[in-house]
């Protein structure tokens, strides 16, 4: 290798000044931090999460202890910042505690579905052939139901309750994640670098670990975050229908359902739990969008 051809290679083809190598995830982080909307949404979500975690410390009242005299007090009542509900329980305390249940039954199914659907999809995409057929056709059957209907059908048949709602939600989230995981894996598998790795003598597991996972986990993760908002809305919806947790547990969806009966007396009490669901779901959606453009993923 002659010196001048080194110089030619380095000077001729690309200006060197603009090249400052950064790890992929670091550059994503930098881009995400520059996006004001994402930062704001992340802050809101952290605030909501912290207030749910520290609900026992932050709550001014016992969320289950009602005061019959002070039922449906309006927002701003002395001692009850956000008023009281139909049983005279402090709204603020119940909203804080409600976040614990609502966030958990919204988020945990997504996590379960990511594990199950991600694994199934990557396997289907990488193995291909009959395995792919079997997995994807099974998912197609679940796809044949409108997702909310399927969630209601499963939790309805199971009989509702905390764990059944989580199961039902996870079940409806698995097929879309599997589909996305399958399609990105199939795409990555077709790239020459996978062939090149095989040509280097690497085995299947090494190729999956080093070359496939590093390229598919990002897109799968991004897609999954875009489902969180949907999951939270449906989870609260199931509670709203009475299929989730049972009273007197504080949960945003369930609170919305019971306060709805009282709209002729105190209309705005029903607004609060719904607003919490809305803000949480919107923040997750916007943050997911921000993350997607920061990671420059096209699905």
């Amino acid at each position, binding site marked *: 290798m002659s010196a001048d051809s080194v110089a030619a290679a380095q000077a001729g083809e690309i200006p060197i000044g603009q090249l400052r190598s950064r790890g992929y995830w670091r550059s994503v982080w930098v881009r995400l931090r520059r996006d004001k909307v994402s930062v704001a949404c992340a802050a809101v979500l952290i605030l909501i999460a912290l207030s749910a975690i520290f609900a026992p410390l932050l709550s001014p009242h016992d969320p289950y202890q009602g005061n019959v005299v002070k039922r449906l007090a309006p927002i701003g009542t002395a001692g009850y910042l956000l008023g009281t509900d139909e049983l005279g329980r402090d709204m603020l305390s119940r909203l804080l505690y409600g976040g614990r249940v609502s966030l958990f039954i919204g988020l945990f199914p997504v996590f379960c579905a990511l594990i199950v659907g991600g694994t199934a999809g990557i396997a289907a995409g990488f193995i291909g052939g009959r395995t792919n057929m079997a997995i994807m056709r099974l998912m197609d059957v679940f796809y044949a139901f409108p997702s909310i209907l*399927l969630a209601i059908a499963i939790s309805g048949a199971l009989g*509702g309750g905390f764990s059944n709602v989580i199961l039902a939600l996870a079940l409806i989230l698995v097929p879309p994640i599997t589909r996305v995981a399958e399609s990105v894996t199939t795409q990555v598998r077709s790239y020459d670098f996978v062939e090149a790795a095989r040509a280097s003598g690497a085995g299947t597991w090494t190729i999956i670990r080093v070359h496939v996972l590093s390229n598919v986990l990002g897109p799968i993760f991004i897609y999954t975050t875009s489902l969180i*908002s949907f999951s939270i809305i449906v989870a609260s919806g199931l509670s709203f229908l009475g299929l989730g947790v049972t009273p007197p547990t504080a949960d945003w969806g369930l609170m919305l359902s019971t306060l709805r009966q009282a709209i002729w007396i105190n209309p705005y009490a029903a607004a609060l739990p719904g607003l919490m669901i809305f803000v949480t779901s919107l923040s997750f959606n916007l943050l997911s969008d921000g993350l997607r453009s920061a990671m420059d993923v096209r699905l």
Partner: protein
Amino acid sequence: MANYILRRLLYAIPIAIGVTVICFSLIYLGPSDPIAAVMPDEASAADVQRIREAYGFDKPVPVQYALWLMRAVQGDFGNSLQSNRPVLDELIPALQNTLRLAVFAAALSFAIAVVVGSVAAYSQGTWLDKTVTSFAITGVSVPHYWVAIMLVIVFAVELGWLPAMGMGTGSSRDWAWDAEHMKALILPVISLSLIPAGIITRTTRASVLEVLSHDYVETLRAKGLSEATVLRHVLKNASPTVLAVTGLQFGHLLGGSILIETVFVWPGTGFLLNESIFKRDLPVLQGTILVLAMFFVFVNLTVDIMQTWLDPRIKRD
């Protein structure tokens, strides 16, 4: 093309069979013996056994499935445990009521979304685009059942303009195309159209932008065509995707209207489903879900075929 449609039809058969299997197995998901659950406490063991045999619950599960499927194909979903009427008799009026909501909601969201989405794409990057995009993302992030309650608070409780619940006169379940019934339709339709409007707006914006990025649009302009003619070409090329998404959203509306129907006490399939769940009326639950899912399969199939017909480039394997 004909080949593709035929293959698509054949492909729908195993899917439909899978759907029936899931619907059938719903009975067995329950926490308790489906028969014991509906029998009064004082019923004797012999009575339970008699009912069990009458419903075929004593046979092996695959046989039960086959018997159930054969009856279901003929429209016999059994009798409601609650009212003792055939499930189909309860299902058909409910389905009509739900369809009424879904058709209006799909039409409303489509009309708004196509206009707003195209405008946003044409003014990409401006405040107008940003406003539309924000509304679209709000539409898909908002719990629509909560919006329904808020609409009731504003327009029924505070202003008293529109009914808060029901389908027209009192608890009547008969539909008529008069002002009273139409007024009852307004709030449910608006709340139902939020999600599809958001999704279709995003799709329209993205497809129009995609079409606009192609060189042939530049060619049309270079040829001196008026902007209106160019727009017609753009919309024509964006339409297969947008129509497909609208079709799918229509399917989702049928299954997803349960929350809105609950808020408005609208006597549709969602309401029926809700009642059947809490009264553990399994035949009604099973029948309703089966019919809605089959409807969804049918809508998907139609959308697919229509899309192929509109856009011959799509010939998926």
